[in-house]
């Protein structure tokens, strides 16, 4: 393995991790406030769909990202209403939303363009090389010659960590996930806070979907998220419910996926389907190892009922 291959792997890792990152950070918000983020998959797909369609129709990538966040948030608000307000089961509702978005996006794709799914070709967002850093030999160009959205994904961890640990609102959000009764007694409305967290998380997951469609793939195809939401969910757990941990988790999964892609081109005598299983096998293995010591937010999955 030479230096170029390593650089190539690094580039692919970053590329694949970016959508996961948005989704994982979005899911983290939702889980920290006490709602399982099973619906990330659907929120990502909704973002991918609205992002791709609007970028295609309006020919504007920035608008695509903005509407993708909106699409994710809209899907999130559906989930938020059902789980937080109506106290529906979080797992079942999340899965239902995933299936709903899968069907709805495929249906609308055809419906909007007269019965036949159009071939959507999208121009990826322009890159924005960082001065100095991008000039580092070999790794510079691969890591620091990215679009703004990629930098945003990785920088997002800073405000998110600050928000969760240093602000009043972040403390309240965590309290709602740990013990909503305590937050309620402190004068907050846990249901409202959970809804806000889910919707905000949905917006981030939607952005993740848009990154996937607009940048990684450059198109929209049916069910294109293909389990990435669940990988993001695993990354949250592997990262033990911290933003920095979630980044690490996403990078691990991104790296394994990159390895899988490259392994195919290296011509290893292994079925490509087996290779495609690798990220999921890793997710299972890591979760089995981590779950014993990891601490979920105590009130996750438990609806808040005002007595």
């Amino acid at each position, binding site marked *: 393995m030479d230096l170029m291959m390593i650089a190539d792997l690094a580039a692919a890792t970053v590329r694949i991790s970016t959508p996961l990152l948005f989704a994982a950070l979005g899911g983290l918000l939702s889980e920290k406030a006490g709602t399982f983020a099973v619906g990330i998959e659907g929120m990502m797909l909704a973002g991918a769909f609205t992002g791709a369609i609007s970028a295609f129709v309006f020919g504007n990538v920035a608008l695509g990202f903005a509407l993708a966040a909106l699409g994710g948030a809209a899907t999130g608000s559906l989930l938020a209403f059902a789980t937080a307000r109506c106290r529906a089961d979080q797992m079942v509702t999340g899965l239902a939303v995933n299936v709903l978005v899968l069907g709805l996006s495929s249906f609308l794709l055809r419906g909007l363009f007269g019965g036949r799914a159009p071939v959507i070709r999208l121009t990826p967002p322009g890159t924005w090389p960082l001065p100095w850093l991008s000039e580092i030999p070999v790794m510079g160009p691969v890591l620091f010659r990215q679009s703004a959205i990629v930098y945003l994904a990785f920088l997002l961890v800073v405000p998110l960590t600050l928000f969760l640990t*240093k602000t009043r609102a972040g403390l*309240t959000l965590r309290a709602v996930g*740990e013990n909503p009764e*305590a937050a*309620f007694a402190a004068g907050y409305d846990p249901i409202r806070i959970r809804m806000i967290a889910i919707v905000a998380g949905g917006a981030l997951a939607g952005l993740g979907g848009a990154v996937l469609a607009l940048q990684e793939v450059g198109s929209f195809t049916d069910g294109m998220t293909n389990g990435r939401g669940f990988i993001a969910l695993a990354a949250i757990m592997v990262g033990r419910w911290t933003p920095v941990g979630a980044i690490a988790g996403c990078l691990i999964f991104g790296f394994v996926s990159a390895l899988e892609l490259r392994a195919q081109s290296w011509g290893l005598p292994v079925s490509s389907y087996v290779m495609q299983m690798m990220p999921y096998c890793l997710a299972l293995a890591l979760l089995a190892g981590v779950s014993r010591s990891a601490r979920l937010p105590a009130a996750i999955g438990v609806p808040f009922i005002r007595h």
Partner: protein
Amino acid sequence: MLEMRGIKKAYGTVQANRGIDLDVAAGQIVGLLGENGSGKSTLMKLLFGVVSADAGTIRFKDKPLSGHGPAQAMAAGLGMIHQHFTLVEAMSVTENVMLGAPGSSPWLSPRETASRIRQESATYGLDIDPDAMIGDLPHGRRQRVEIVKAILRGADLLILDEPTSNLSPPEVEGLLGIMARLRDQGRAIVFISHKLDEVIAICSEVVVLRDGAVAGTCRVEGATRAGLARMMVGRDMPPPIAREATAAGRNVLHVGQMALTERGVERLAPISFSLRAGEILAIAGIDGNGQTELAECLAGLRLPTAGGIDLDGHDITLASVGERTELGMAYIPVDRATMSLVTGMSVSDNLALRDFDKPPLSRGGYLARSYFAERAREMSQRFAIKASGPDIAARTLSGGNQQKIVLAREIGRHPAVMIAHQPVWGLDPGATHFVIEQILALRAAGGAIIYISSSLEEVMTLGDRIAVMQGGRLSIPIDRDTVDLTQIGLMMAGDDSLIHGAAA
């Protein structure tokens, strides 16, 4: 400082408050007495804005208070310490205090908050470490965190909802001291309790509620326990139950050098004792000194790591709970909501939990449903369980009636040995009396009973022999006639010279 007039509140058809007046002055501790269900909690929830009143007015610090929620109540200067704490276990003391603290900055100020906690902690003798995680603190400490939270939020009037119900005697002393210091600083306190002694010890005035109305208000000077109790229940308390001396029966339970070590920590030092039929061995001690471990080792929920247990000639050291049940062991765990009952299941199902798999409750793998209901009715009558029917969920019953289900299930089998761990915890006087009566009836019928409690009063009135647990060790059981209260108190407080765990 506080003026409540004509407060009314109904839940469905139940009138929880039917026109209550309450006055509290600054620097005063007012006791709010009443049995469970007399309307104390409802009244305080109304004051704190957790629920809204149907009628009546509240004036606090000369300003009307109406249509308020907890946030407005706190802003006005009310603080409430609930029976179930509203603390986040995975967070530190400081984080819990910062949660919902007044202020407009979006940023948290942990350092400043911690120093204020230290300051108040010193003023009131709370002894709280701001950096401790709530999950690591014992119950009594958590309560003090709740108090410091309320103080730092500027509470001038504190509502303490049955604050002593699961504190050990020294913790109660400590709390009463803190309350006195709060009063001396000019704060007012509403002290909800059904323990007469505590109310008499700390309050200047007592308001007694019964059936949602004020049954009487009186100054504490001159009030007697009997007088207050009469006001509470509306009748004279039955006299303490006379116990007949039973002839010492044969030994049914023998515990020899039983010890428990978990993850390298010694939970129980080698414990030995014997128990005779028709005898109550009462075990005193402050909570968390190995009582739960002892009870669970005997009941089969944990396995001792050394020593043995012999029940009527059978070695049950490693026997399963089911095998112990077969041999006549019964167990009333300390936590009825999670250990004794499946609260989401019906009364009849809960009554059947011990023997649903045997005839007549089941035949050939099928449950005999009709018999479930029949037995539930019979048991409800015998044990005075007040439930609207056998199919109602146990969750909807009061604590007293829940405990009666447990009693019915455990005593109804005529056990040879029963382990009762704090069986009257949190019950009102009526239910307490009933439970004690049933336990004494079991004793009279030849049952051997281990009665574990942190209440000295219960231990002294019930035990034929009395022992103390401290630091995982059990003292030599002493006959009730030769027992010395100071000695017991000293042992509970951890005077090592009096504990001989390995002896007997």
